[in-house]
């Protein structure tokens, strides 16, 4: 990463995107380095934990940026914009594969090689249950929850991604947490 000029590495995503619109090679390279790791794991979680597919989707995502950087509107925050493209790619994939139900909550990994400790077993059960309960929610509420606590987008970024007020995102989060809390009361708190 250090081989790029400081002038690029110190710039914000939005400034780099504006440079990419002028077809500046280094701007694209720096943006890729900043987001490739994050996005490949996003695809990995969302697309059935298939590493090859995640790499392919990562390639296609940045190819979209490369082929049509003009789609980025100056003034918009880059990260939610990038996630909105990635989410749409996932949705298209769900539709094409018609395995939406299997992929939808694949963000929660299986626990491999866990010890026989009861706490880990509880955690595993809790995760399975959380998958099920989240699956029962509608797509909008589930997506808000995953974007906030799995992809770690801020509320402001989610609002921008979903093109809605921040208050709406907060309401959806609160609703989702309450619904999950009601349904998961049978499980003891794992972390105190």
């Amino acid at each position, binding site marked *: 990463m250090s081989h790029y000029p400081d002038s690029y590495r110190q710039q914000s995503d939005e400034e780099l995107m504006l440079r990419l619109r002028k*077809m500046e090679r280094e701007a694209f390279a720096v943006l890729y380095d900043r987001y490739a790791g994050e996005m490949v794991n996003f695809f990995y979680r969302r697309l059935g934990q298939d590493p090859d597919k995640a790499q392919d989707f990562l390639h296609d995502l940045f190819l979209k940026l490369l082929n049509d950087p003009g789609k980025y509107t100056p003034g918009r925050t880059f990260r939610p914009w990038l996630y909105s493209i990635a989410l749409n790619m996932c949705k298209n994939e769900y539709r094409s594969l018609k395995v939406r139900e299997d992929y939808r909550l694949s963000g929660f*990994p299986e626990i491999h090689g866990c010890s026989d400790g009861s706490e880990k077993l509880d955690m595993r059960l809790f995760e399975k249950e959380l998958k099920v309960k989240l699956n029962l929610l509608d797509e909008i509420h589930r997506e808000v929850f995953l974007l906030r*606590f799995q992809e*770690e987008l801020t509320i402001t970024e989610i609002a921008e991604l979903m093109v809605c007020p921040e208050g709406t995102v907060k309401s959806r989060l609160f609703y989702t*947490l309450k619904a999950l809390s009601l349904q998961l009361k049978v499980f003891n708190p794992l972390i105190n």
Partner: protein
Amino acid sequence: MEENIFDAIPGFDRLLEEKAFEALTKRERDQVLQFISREDYNHFREAVLVAQHGMQRREPPITPDPSVKNRLMQHFDSESMPPSSSIPLSLSRLLNHRIPFYQAALAASVLLFMVIFLLLQNHRMPVRMAVADTVYVDRPMLLKDTVWLEKSGEIGPETAMIRHARTEPRDPVPARSINENPLYTRQMDDAMRRVSVISGLEKDRSVNNDAGLMKLVITGMAIAISP
């Protein structure tokens, strides 16, 4: 409508991620308890942490394949490289080039006016035609082409003599004798003043032909000799 805890406590989502209920400050606890119970807070936190731990346990789950970046950069280079072969005028590019209608109309009218102008110019070009001209000469001169000599006078015996001289020229008078004889010289001068040359415009007016000169001299002599 139920009040939203996310609106009432700024950064409540961060609080859930970072602090258990027991770790909250008194002020934070009081704020939280105004909306939800301690149990609810812990359930909220469970869901959040399980979602997050799911990621953290696989850290780093996968890393981007270097070949992905290489392919993208190659694509970038091929896209951003100026298409050198297509810059020169290609027929298909010219044919597919679209211009506004007004530009095409303007070009067509300019061409039309140019054609009309050229046609009018052709009509105004000078016509080659013969023009009669009269040149008075007072000394021997070279003539390039045919010279007609005119002499005003009455038709009489002298005219017949001239005609006779034209058809049957006598022996030319030696130049020396002409130059030495003042009478001849005066008469020659007088005769030459009366010579008129008629020529066509397309003929070269310069008179530098030796044969023409001799013809003029002979004819002039004939006129001078006549009374």
